[in-house]
Each structure stands twice: as structure tokens, then as C-alpha cells.
């Protein structure tokens, strides 16, 4: 059996064994419903509230500002839909400012609000790296803005937005700011909620926690319409019996991440830069996408001229390397990457993207062998076209 090397940590990460360890008692042992009055319920509630404190600490928020959800996408949906309706009710504002390079969890939610509920969408321009210019935001922040939603770091090209400046501008204008921090959570400081960001969405499986659980930090005095109604859990903001083992897992994974953040960054950056130099130096017609320095420490993304990115992914996988692409598609019908369009790449480049994201198990040897095989695979794909 050939060795398989996983280089797609932005898609998902393995669950840290320490996290699994913390989750296990809450399946069959401490199984109570945290809403129950009795002792079984109280034990579960204790685990839930302890997890909430941990997450609040990591995000620079207060425990009552944390809402647990089923994933990052749900957190984005709750933040945007909940805030858009609440703001329109409060102020009549109905413009939502966002960017063309957001994850679909954000873009498709805003688009639905436009189509079904009469909201208006303003797309901020992004520069050649996919970054928002705060000057553009300043001009866009008019009176009738209900909400701004700008991602912390881009999933496809890794670029980090200047959230401090963006947050300051929104705060000055009194407009709530949501940030999709799903990709950022594994690598960037998250304790920014109180100062700059009103709503912040994360999902556990991107930082060595389990799939199927996420969180949304909601600043205290920000009203939010629930998008899932029912038993009033999560302070009425997200109904449904809480998934205690997974919430415990999310909290533990986030704590481990925050404790290790700087060391993790250093481990990744050296390997990432070696990878980037190796690819750009050995593959003709290649370019880095996203910002050269203001990017996620584990994230390398490329565009190759005149290349079918999906075909390259297939050959890479057959060779033992698991990567991703902005136009990745499992049914053989790739579309040009919208993100690459937005940063101004021409058609010759937008189908040929490759994302290589490193993780805790990635070694320099693995990167070396990746750099060694990539040029010949690129040649094969270009030859087949």
C-alpha cells in the first residue's frame, strides 16, 4: 500500500486524541440533558457551562456571549440572518456589506436574504490578494447598513484581513460586524471579540476538534433573532438539546489551540515557505495566490496557467498526496474559482488552482517529496489538455 500524505488541513483536521479523551465520558456516562432539573441534567449542564467558559476565555468574550451550534456554517447563518432581521426591525436598515471572496456559508446566506427578504447586498472590492481595503469599507458604511460580514482569513487563498481596522470603522459607525473565522481559528488570535468584532463564527473540526459542532460569539448588547426556534436553549438564540460531548470536544480543542498558537505558527511558517518556494521555483507558469505574508501560517495556494486543477488533484491523489482546489468538484464539472476571478486572474488561470494546507503531522520530508513529484504531474495534466 502506498503512503498517503494528507495536505488538506484547511478542509478538516484529525481530532486530537486528547480531545477524544475528554469527550468520551459524555456519551454513555454523563449523558443527561442539560435542561433537566435533576442531577443527571445538572452534571451535563456543568460540563456545558464549563465548556462555555473555556470558549469565552479563548475568544475574549463572556460566557453568556457564546452560542453553541452544529458547525461553522450554522454559526455564519445564525449571525447573518439573525442580525439582519434584528437590525432591520430596530433601525430599518437593510444593506448588508460583504466581500466577493467569502465562503458560501456567508455569500449564499446573504444572497437568500436579498432574494427572499428584500435586503440589499453591497460587495466590497478586494485587492489582488483578496484583501479588503478599509478605505473602501469607510465609503460603503452609509446610514442604512444593517450588517457587515467580512471573513477573518480566506479559506481558498489564505489571506488575512485587517480585522482591527475593519472593526474600528464599524464600531465608529455603530454597525454590527460579523466575521467568519472558521479558517482563522486554528492559527490566529481569537480574543478579539470584545474589542473589534460583534459576531465571530468558528467550527471545531478545523482546529483538531470533532465535526458537527461550532460556536458563535455574540457581543452582549447585540440583539439577534434566532434562526432555529424551540426549547429556548442557548439563551433563546439557538434551540435544540446541546450536543454535550461535541461541545466539550470543541472547548478542549480550542483551549489546546490557543495555548499552542505561537509555537504552531512557527512550526508551520517555515515549512509553508519552503513549500511555496519549491513550487514556484520548479513549476513554470505558476503563481502564489493570496497575500505573500499576510496569510494563514499553514496555507499555500497556487494557480497554474492552462491547467485543469481537478485533473491535477486526481493525479496527486493517485500518487499519494491529498490536496484541494478552489474549483474542486467531485462530479467532474469544475467551474472557474470565483475567488480567483475576484482577485483579477484571467481565465487561463482560474481553473488551475491548487491548495496545499499543512498540519501538525506534516513533515519537511513530506513537503520535499511533494515538491519533487508536482512538476511532472503538472506536465502530464498540461499534456493531456
Amino acid at each position: 500500500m502506498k503512503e498517503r500524505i494528507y495536505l488538506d488541513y484547511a478542509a478538516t483536521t484529525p481530532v486530537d486524541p486528547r480531545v477524544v479523551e475528554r469527550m468520551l465520558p459524555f456519551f454513555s456516562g454523563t449523558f443527561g440533558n442539560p435542561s433537566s432539573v435533576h442531577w443527571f441534567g445538572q452534571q451535563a449542564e456543568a460540563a456545558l457551562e464549563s465548556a462555555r467558559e473555556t470558549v469565552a476565555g479563548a475568544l475574549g468574550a463572556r460566557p453568556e456571549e457564546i452560542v453553541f451550534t452544529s458547525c461553522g456554517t450554522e454559526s455564519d447563518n445564525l449571525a447573518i440572518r439573525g442580525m439582519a432581521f434584528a437590525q432591520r426591525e430596530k433601525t430599518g436598515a437593510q444593506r448588508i456589506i460583504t466581500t466577493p471572496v467569502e465562503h458560501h456559508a456567508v455569500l449564499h446566506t446573504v444572497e437568500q436574504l436579498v432574494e427572499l427578504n428584500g435586503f440589499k447586498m453591497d460587495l466590497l472590492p478586494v485587492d489582488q490578494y483578496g484583501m479588503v481595503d478599509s478605505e473602501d469599507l469607510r465609503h460603503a458604511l452609509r446610514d442604512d447598513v444593517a450588517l457587515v460580514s467580512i471573513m477573518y482569513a480566506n479559506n481558498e487563498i489564505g489571506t488575512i484581513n485587517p480585522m482591527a481596522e475593519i472593526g474600528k470603522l464599524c464600531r465608529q459607525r455603530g454597525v454590527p460586524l460579523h466575521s467568519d473565522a472558521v479558517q482563522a481559528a486554528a492559527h490566529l488570535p481569537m480574543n478579539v471579540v470584545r474589542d473589534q468584532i460583534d459576531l465571530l463564527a468558528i467550527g471545531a473540526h478545523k482546529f483538531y476538534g470533532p465535526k458537527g459542532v461550532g460556536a458563535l460569539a455574540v457581543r452582549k448588547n447585540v440583539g439577534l433573532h434566532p434562526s432555529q426556534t424551540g426549547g429556548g436553549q442557548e439563551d433563546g438564540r439557538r434551540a435544540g438539546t446541546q450536543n454535550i460531548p461535541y461541545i466539550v470536544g470543541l472547548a478542549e480543542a480550542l483551549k489546546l489551540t490557543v495555548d499552542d498558537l505561537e509555537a504552531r505558527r512557527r512550526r508551520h511558517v517555515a515549512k509553508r515557505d519552503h513549500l511555496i518556494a519549491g513550487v514556484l521555483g520548479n513549476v513554470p507558469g505558476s503563481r502564489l495566490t493570496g497575500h505573500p505574508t499576510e496569510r494563514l501560517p499553514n496555507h499555500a495556494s497556487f494557480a497554474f496557467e492552462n491547467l485543469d486543477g481537478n485533473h491535477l488533484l486526481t493525479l496527486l491523489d493517485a500518487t499519494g498526496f491529498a490536496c484541494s482546489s478552489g474549483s474542486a468538484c467531485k462530479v467532474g464539472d469544475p467551474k472557474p474559482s470565483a475567488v480567483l476571478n475576484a482577485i483579477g486572474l484571467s481565465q487561463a488561470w482560474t481553473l488551475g488552482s491548487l491548495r496545499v494546507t499543512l498540519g501538525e503531522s506534516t513533515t519537511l520530508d513530506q513537503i520535499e517529496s511533494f515538491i519533487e513529484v508536482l512538476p511532472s504531474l503538472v506536465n502530464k495534466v498540461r499534456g493531456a489538455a
Partner: protein
Amino acid sequence: MKKGTSVVVAMSGGVDSSVAAALLVEQGYDVTGVMLRLWSEPGKEDSNRCCTPDAMAGARRVAAKLGIPFYALNSQDLFHDVVVQSFIEGYRNGITPNPCILCNQLIRWGFMYETAQELGAEFMATGHYAQVHSKPDGNVELRRGLDPDKDQSYVMSVLTQEKLRRTLFPVGGMAKPEVRAHARRFGLTVADRADSQDLCFLAGQDYRSFLARHAPEVVQPGKIVQADGRHVGEHQGLAFYTIGQRKGLGVAASRPLYVLEKNLANNELVVGDEAHLGRSGLTAGGMNWVSGTAPAEPFEAEVKIRYRAVLAPAVVTPQGNNQITVHFKNSMRDITVGQRVVIYNGEVVRGGGTIQTSFNTIEEPA
């Protein structure tokens, strides 16, 4: 010997290719599943007979169950530019093209075969009912599938020695009930889709409406005439009729009339009695001789002029330049220019080519 030999298997989500993949896994091959994404008319992707999202999900489920990697291969542009365009071009030229032949030649045993090589595979396998037999001299023979109702050797007649040597047909030596029994044994709950001769990209619709949308210029109404030139009616466009067709001509006559011929130069559809459908022979070009060499002498053979036609005894005369002349023992009806003629000796496929003309002996070209 098979242990670890790498095979790429074309999967469709149907029972034949799923069992083919399962058998290869069972035999110890290192198996990778692939499925071609072919071209569909925009908005009709859900109706493409070969590769609907449902079919792809089905194939993916089978691959997951077998524990093998699975990839969708995008050949939409290639399929459109090569297969669909020549389909349209064929009708423009007044013939009845067979796009499945071209697809097998240039997409399946072209693009997919090459991709299989890129993936490091020694063999490409499909769920077709045909058989490859090795001969003592190192060459291989293409033979009919064991199940006469399912035999697909007709379309496989495009394959060369080089490709056949690297092709496996795991169910080719089985009858359909045996394949179904294997499916049950492997616990494969795959849909046993009804066989269809519809073209995949027609999305279940008639080819006439496809042509009207994509090549309106071929839809030129004209005269229906009899062999003696007598004007008996109007046709809607030559492309809308097939040789031997009786129904739907819209001609009132005292006896049944059949389409005998299309006269592209005058845009006339020639009709006549059933007796005049019969032809004594045909010429064909672009022959692929499976052995790799054209026979030097005329030989007796059984000949098929359509996928579902019966085998007809004939004498085949190689003419050089990959041309042949076929003289049938008995008069043959419905010979259609543009369709494939395939030459058999018993179970063995000798070769195949594209029908160019049909004739009666007295009018045989020199």
C-alpha cells in the same frame, strides 16, 4: 500474479460495471474507479443517460463500499467538440452517424485510457460484454460476449491490439443472470437500469428536436420522391428519416412505402417498395482490423450492419487503404451510410469500419 496489479475501472453506477469492479477487487487487483463526466445540454444534466448526478453518486457509493478510490473525470468539452460536433456534422452530410462508436474510440479508449495510464494503471477495465483472449503468438483476439443478448463486441470493434492488451472485461465471459448473482453476493444494491439505445446527450428526447435546436440548418424541408422521380410528398428535413423507415412519412399511397435513400444534392427523400430496400452489398472505410493487419484475400465472414442487427453471411473483400467491399449472401435491407459495419468469424471480431455506400450487384462500383 494479479496481486497489486493496478487497474482503472470505468464505473457507471450500474450493475455490470459495479460487479466488474467488485470482481477485480476480489481477484486482488489494486483498483481505482473512474467515471466520465460527459457533455449535457445546459440545464439537462439530470437527464444525461450516462452521467446524471444520481448515477455518479451511485458509482461513488459502490466505490466506497469496495474501499477503492473514485474520481470523476471531466470530459465535457472533449465530448462536445468531438462526439456531439461530428454527430451534427454527420446529419449535415446526410448520413446517420453513430456517436457511441466515436465516444468509445476517442473518449473511453482515448481520454479515459490515457488518464488511466497517467494514474499508473496497467489495465483499464469496463463492464462491457465482450472478451479478450490471448493467443500463443502474443497477440490478442476480441471475441463476442458470452451472453448473446448482451454482447457488446460490436462497439468494441474500434479497439486496437495495443489497447486490447491493456483492457479487461470482467463480466464479458458471463451471462447476465450470473452478473446479477455476483451483485447479490457482493451485496451491491445497484439499480439494474433498463438498456437503452438512446444517445446519452439527448437527455431522453428525440434526436430530431436536438438537431432542430443545435443545427437548425439541417432541418430543410424538401420533396419526397419515388425512384422514378415521381413527387409524392414533402419531408421535414432529411435528417429526420432513417433508411427503411415506413411510418410517419405522411405520404398517402396504395401500398406501404419505405425510405430507400437520401439524396442530399437535391434534398430529396427517395421512397419505394419494401422489395427495393434490399441491397446486395456495401462499401466501408476507416477499417480497424483488430489483428493489426488487413487481410490480403477475400474471406467469408458474418457481418453486422447495426448494433442490434443479426449476423449475416457475406464475403468481405479488402480493398486497400482501409476500405472493404462486402457482398452479402442474401439481400440485406436497411444498410445505412454512417453506421458501423463489423466483421465476425464465429466468435472473433475481425474488424469494423464505417459504411460509405450500399449497392446492388448490377450497379456495383468498379
